């Protein structure tokens, strides 16, 4: 019976390890390779921490299982061994984890700075957001500046509006201004590993460089109400000409006066 | 202890099974269960031909005349708008006194603006011919003219304005399409046309949203056997087929708006039947 519990506690960590090993081949892992420059760095950090944690996990679970097994196989007539603790052991298992944690916190500093510190953003995106992404229960409202003019925080005449679809250039560092109209939301693009909370009252610049043109899913990652689960949008990364064409089409749609289509000629 | 654990596991797993079944829509109704659809063909039974679609016209007719009289002391209603009052658009809307038209009673108790009509075209009634001339529905000094009126269906109603301020005419019918349209100031041509395609069961309200005290009543019918009482409470309905008829007497200030739901009247050939409709003062709900 006692052996059962020892095996029980040894069994589940083995299952977990096995699941992690087969996860990528079964599609239980990340949705794709990180397709942004920051994404690679974020994934790198993730793997580093994963390795550290796995080693620790295996070691501690192994020790736990060993202790259980030893206790299980001990005769019931044997005397229990009492310990008054070991000062040396206490020091070791305080200093080693602290060292690991400090190491992790220092290693990730430059990536964090690139994500969060505006002065560390690439020069080309400084003060040049391409769109304002306003999160709202339960959709994403996009405002592009009039082509050829910079994006202002206050709506300007000629600004172009859309909802749930953002067009940005691929392979170029791009920045958007993240805002929210009501409660907290979060701008999360899993395939790019970009995630940033939208806080009411703040305008938060978020930059990314999408390596490959294509369609990316934008999800809300901060519980914002009953519709949080379906608060999705599309990010479409295409060539700069493609984005320009899209904005031109958007502008002409937005200026539709209902007459052009009747006689077939559009200006 | 073993039993306890086993029983707890039983409870929890059965709960899990039931909840999963319910959540996955296998049990009970629920949003995700695909519904059944049964088709009902067009057509259905051919309904009996209703009144109004008669084989022959009657040959003997009579006339109904009468008065709607308020029995009891009529309350005096204060003016809706006093001349010179400080209200919106006062140069136009407060240029004259505007009385409260909900109850207009003549000196001897005759109630104006009451509707006397048959609910349905009677058997043998004369066929309906809508007047080809459009009806001119006017407004002046923020007051509709006329206050109560009967039309026949498909008659064109032109909304005119004799005021230098904008009005909008907003109708609230049951069977017809509601109209809510602006009327330009001093529109003497009547650019806004209203056509009632269906008869109504009771008169419908007509309002102005800019000047909420303005009101009028329209009653489109598919037969001509209706009348609105004049300022003395008098009404006349000619050419009624001989026989028993059941009239509705409707007035906006009555409790429930019906003065009489089923006023039985016998019409005799060639004769004028006179009717006095009593409108008790305690029926008023103002």
């Amino acid at each position, binding site marked *: 019976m006692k052996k059962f519990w020892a095996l029980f506690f040894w069994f589940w960590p083995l299952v977990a390890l096995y699941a992690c090993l087969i996860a990528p081949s079964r599609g239980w892992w990340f949705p794709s390779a990180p397709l942004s420059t920051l994404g690679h760095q974020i994934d790198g950090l993730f793997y580093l921490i994963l390795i550290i944690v796995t080693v620790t996990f295996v070691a501690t679970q192994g020790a736990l299982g060993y202790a259980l097994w030893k206790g299980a196989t001990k005769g019931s007539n044997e005397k229990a061994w009492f310990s008054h603790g070991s000062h040396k052991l206490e020091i070791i298992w305080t200093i080693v984890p602290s060292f690991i944690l400090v190491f992790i916190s220092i290693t990730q500093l430059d990536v964090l700075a690139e994500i969060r510190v505006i002065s560390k953003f690439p020069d080309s995106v400084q003060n040049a957001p391409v769109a304002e992404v306003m999160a709202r229960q339960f959709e994403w409202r996009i405002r592009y500046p009039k082509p050829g003019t910079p994006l202002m925080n206050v709506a300007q005449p000629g600004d172009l509006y859309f909802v*749930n679809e953002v067009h940005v250039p691929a392979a170029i560092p791009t920045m958007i201004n993240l805002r929210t109209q009501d409660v907290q939301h979060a701008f999360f693009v899993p395939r790019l590993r970009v995630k940033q909370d939208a806080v009411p009252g703040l305008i938060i610049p978020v930059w990314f460089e999408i390596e490959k043109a294509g369609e990316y899913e934008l999800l809300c990652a901060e519980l914002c109400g009953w519709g949080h689960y379906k608060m999705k949008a599309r990010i479409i990364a295409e060539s700069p000409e493609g984005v320009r064409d899209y904005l031109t089409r958007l502008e002409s749609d937005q200026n539709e*006066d209902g007459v052009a289509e009747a006689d077939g000629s559009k200006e | 202890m073993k039993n306890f654990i086993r029983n707890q596991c039983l409870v929890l797993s059965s709960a899990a099974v039931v909840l999963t079944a319910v959540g996955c829509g296998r049990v009970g109704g629920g949003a995700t269960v695909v*519904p059944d659809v049964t*088709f009902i063909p067009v057509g259905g039974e051919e309904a009996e031909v*209703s009144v109004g679609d008669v084989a022959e016209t009657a040959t003997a007719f009579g006339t109904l005349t009468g008065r709607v009289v308020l029995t009891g002391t009529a309350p005096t209603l204060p003016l809706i708008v006093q001349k010179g009052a400080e209200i919106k658009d006062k140069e136009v809307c407060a240029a004259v006194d505007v009385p409260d038209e909900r109850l207009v009673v003549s000196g001897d108790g005759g109630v104006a603006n009451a509707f006397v009509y048959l609910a349905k075209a009677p058997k043998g009634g004369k066929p309906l011919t809508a007047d080809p001339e459009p009806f001119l529905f006017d407004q002046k000094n923020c007051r509709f003219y006329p206050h109560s009126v009967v039309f026949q269906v498909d008659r064109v109603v032109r909304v005119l304005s004799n005021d230098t301020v904008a009005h909008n005419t907003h109708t609230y019918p049951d069977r017809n399409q509601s109209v809510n349209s602006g009327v*330009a100031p001093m529109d003497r041509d009547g650019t806004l046309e209203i056509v009632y395609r269906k008869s109504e069961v009771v008169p419908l309200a007509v*309002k102005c949203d800019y000047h909420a005290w303005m009101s009028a009543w329209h009653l489109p019918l598919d037969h001509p056997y209706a009348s609105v009482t004049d300022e003395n409470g008098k009404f006349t309905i000619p050419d009624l087929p001989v026989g028993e008829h059941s009239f509705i007497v409707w007035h906006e200030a009555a409790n429930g708006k019906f003065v009489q739901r089923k006023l039985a009247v016998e019409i005799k050939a060639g004769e004028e039947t006179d009717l006095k409709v009593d409108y008790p003062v305690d029926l008023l709900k103002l």
Partner: protein
Amino acid sequence: MENSISISLKNRILLSLLTLAVSGCSDGDSSFSYSSRTQSLIAEAQNGTDGGPGVKQTLDSRFGNPQQLKAWMKLPVKWGGASASVESAAESDTESRIKVIAKEGETLPAVATSVQFVSGQGAGQSILLKSWDDKTGEAVLAEIPSVKPASGDECVIDGGSTLKSGRVLYMRHCSHCHGAAGDGKGPTAEYMIPKPRDYRHGVFKFTSTNDLSKASRADLLRILKYGIPGTYMPSFLLMKEEELQAIVEYVRFLAMRGEYERRLVSELSSDYSEKAVSDRLGSETRKDIVSELQEFLKDELPETAESLGDDLSEAWTAAEAEESKIIPNVARVEDTTESRQRGRALYLSKTLNCADCHGIDGAGNGPQTVAFEKNPVTNELYPEAGLHDVWDNPNQPRNLQRGIFRGGRRPIDLFARIHAGIKGSRMPSFKSTPHEDIWHVVNYLLSLQFESEPGAIAVKATAPAETGE
């Protein structure tokens, strides 16, 4: 100790299962809610008498309930599948085959799983298909029908597929606000201002059709795709096109059902509502009233029930026609300062009188917004000041300085708002105003949010060269 535990555990198991059953399971008999007007009729009018079915049965027999929907083929709803008629039918001991030809204007679906016979001796039979060939119209039925289909019988192939899909999607995405019956009283609706749309008037506010027409499918699709900014209606842009269209059909179905119920009740309410009957009891007996109702239900209501369907069909079909759409007779006037000033002058003028509701500066604070008004139908004062819509919800005039245009911000959208008004609200239609004047007002409105001070028109007009005019 163990005995007492096991006995109470049995009870506990039973109790928990019972609780779950009560809370989670329904008895499978879901139903559409009935409007409050229906429920204000006397019971005999609602439920019918020996004379004939009442409002509820008449309604249910034509629309069904959410689990057992009824597709009344008179209504202009795209039910899914195709209408066809049986050309020939062959039956052997083991199987039944039919060959169908599609009705005019319909195409047989590529995939079909069921056939339903709607006319002839075998009407009402619904049979699954074992095989289906849409090119030839040949089908093998999965079972032998009890009545053999005859040539000329009308049927529906894979009928209701769109409606079913629409209903499932609607319940998942829409019903929590709009209610299962489209009454705008779903569980989350309580917390919202403005309230979600109650479809049962058959009225939708933001359309591209003229003031006397219903909303077209394109209008409803537009709302689904782009949402209504400034309200709780989100955009469903990411749903597939077929899914959006299925939802639109189901919403139209619910709107037709609601309007049908409303019109049915109108026929009865002036004489047979609770209030009317209690008034009548002063001079008549209840027995007389009920027998009169019985005659009405037998003689008159059936014909009305059919003609109401015709009315709905006519109205909703007309909404799709080109004639219903608002097309300005002049292209948008160039957006210059002069045009905007002219627009402002029109806005303030007594001809259009916009300022009465929308305020001198377009802030939605005109004098109408503080007046107490009466419900035009019941003549009772509304509890709060200001304007109300046909759903009796407070419906204040838009604050035009915010730049939020619920029905869309394109010039044509604003034109349609002014030309047709906003159906169901107090915003009237200005269809007699010259279209050029409407464009001036539109130009003014689009510039309003950028005014540095009211009436200033401080923002310069954009140069025309870029728009290529």
